[in-house]
């Protein structure tokens, strides 16, 4: 009866269940309605700028504008949704019931992470898809209006690269979600988590400036310190491959893969730290 061999192995099925439930919570909280609203806003605002008629640079403008919206709203969504979906479990004490079942805390944390990442994934897919649709629509219209602008190079818009840029942003949001979850795992309130999460976001975006500024330092301890910090905080600038998109160049596939590996490494390390810290937490 009381067999000591009754182990409970780590289960991907349970992890997926928790992730699915987290995703469902986001769906039923009408988070996606909000996203849809954002998307409609995006289309409408791009339509408003059309009046200026930028010519073929208009397409570049639409792309930059859409990417900006993806980065900005995606970051905000990632930080707030991660904190909210984590603390809804803690504050409403549903974590109590769940963790009183044979559930590993690792399954709980990575389940939450995966659920949030799926939500953000839907958002990225939505905005990227919309952006491609908008660009294709304008490209078609511009081609019809002044075909001489489009001679030679063929279709100037590298749609594949836009998809890659969207995927890379999604990977970046995965890193951000893992970092936010790490903060949430030891903090007491939702608000604190969101605020610190945004600080981390800014640091990750700007850390490359510090690293460049201190590159010429001669003092070894300072160099070590800066190097350490630059590894503690992931560098979000590496995800920004949009500059590489253009008529002649394209996104280098190998670079994209390396960036993806960079993101996954950070996701696992930060997620692992979140599990470690959550294990000490009293529910």
């Amino acid at each position, binding site marked *: 009866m*009381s067999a000591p061999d009754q182990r*409970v192995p780590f289960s991907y099925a349970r992890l997926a269940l928790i992730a699915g439930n987290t995703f*469902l919570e986001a769906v*039923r909280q009408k988070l996606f309605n909000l996203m849809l609203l954002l998307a409609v806003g995006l289309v409408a605002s791009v339509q408003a700028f059309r009046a200026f008629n930028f010519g073929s640079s208009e397409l570049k403008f639409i792309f930059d504008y859409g990417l900006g919206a993806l980065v900005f709203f995606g970051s905000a969504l990632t930080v707030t949704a991660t904190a909210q979906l984590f603390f809804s479990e803690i504050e*409403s004490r549903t974590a109590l019931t769940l963790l009183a079942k*044979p559930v590993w805390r690792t399954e709980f944390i990575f389940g939450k992470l995966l659920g949030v990442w799926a939500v953000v994934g839907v958002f990225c897919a939505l905005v990227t898809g919309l952006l491609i649709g908008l660009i294709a629509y304008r490209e078609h219209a511009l081609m019809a209006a002044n075909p001489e602008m489009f001679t030679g190079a063929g279709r100037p818009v590298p749609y594949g690269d836009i998809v890659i840029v969207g995927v890379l942003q999604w990977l970046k949001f995965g890193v951000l979600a893992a970092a936010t979850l790490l903060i949430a795992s030891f903090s007491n309130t939702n608000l604190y988590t969101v605020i610190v999460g945004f600080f981390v976001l800014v640091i990750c975006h700007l850390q490359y400036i510090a690293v460049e500024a201190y590159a010429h330092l001669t003092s070894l301890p300072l160099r070590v310190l800066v190097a350490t910090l630059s590894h503690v905080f992931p560098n979000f600038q590496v995800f920004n491959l949009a500059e590489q998109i253009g008529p002649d160049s394209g996104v280098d596939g190998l670079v994209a893969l390396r960036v993806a590996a960079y993101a996954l490494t950070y996701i696992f390390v930060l997620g692992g730290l979140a599990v470690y810290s959550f294990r000490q937490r*009293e*529910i």
Partner: protein
Amino acid sequence: MPPAPAPPAAVPPASARPATAAIELRGLTKDFPVGLRGVKLRAVDNLTLDVPAGQVFGLLGPNGSGKSTTIKVILGLLEPTLGTCRVFGVPSGQVASRRNVGYLPESPYFYRYLSGEELVRFYARVCGVPRARLAARVGEVIEWVGLTGAAGRRVGTYSKGMLQRIGLAQALVHDPRLIILDEPTAGVDPVGSAEISAMILRLKAEGKTVLITSHLLAQIEDVCDRIAILDRGRLILAGTVAELVGRRDRQALLVETLPEAELAELRAWLAARGRTLEAVEQPRTRLDQLFLREIARSEGQREGRS
């Protein structure tokens, strides 16, 4: 000091030791940090207790006496400051100790965005109920707790008593061997309370162990085999209900109301045998029994009409 656990080889087979403890607490102490200067609150103080398998065990005590804290330690949700806790022999820090445990938290609150049925199904799947039996099992426990009609509604719309009931359903869905109920009757109507009592007795008949806390002492007395009373985290009394509240030297006889003359005769009869009639009382129906009877009658009438 907690005794060292016996090596597995020395443990006799289950059939040879029917009275294994489902829960073993040894010197359990739990401190909470409160205040700024490292002030500690001792919520549970050196508690040593066995909950024998197959029994209904009542954990009693005033508010804040450490009942819920003890339960959370048993479930591995809190780490003991000192002492040990084992569930079916497995230390409660390990995930495996929760395998055979169902838990109803006090004032439960569940995923508001799920329907009652989705909620129970989610927990069933988390606990590894096989897919083939999932739908049948979920329907069965929902019927037990009397929520079949409301199973499709969002949990967020449930009343307090309905939350307790759905909580009970999720605690039972994976057919655990140990069921821990933290105030299962709080907010439940007397009919529901009586149903919960009946369910606890049925679980006991199936050989399950039940640990229950409640402030309804009459109910505890009816269903529990053993009780323990805590006060400020300390165990102040433990034992079987029969030995604690039973009086073996007294009997109560219930008869039709006797005329005064016959009563005098009875007294004389007893006096001739050297005994006395200590009390003559008019028994009253207990209010809960009256309530249950009247509700049953009203429901019966409504069914008759419809």
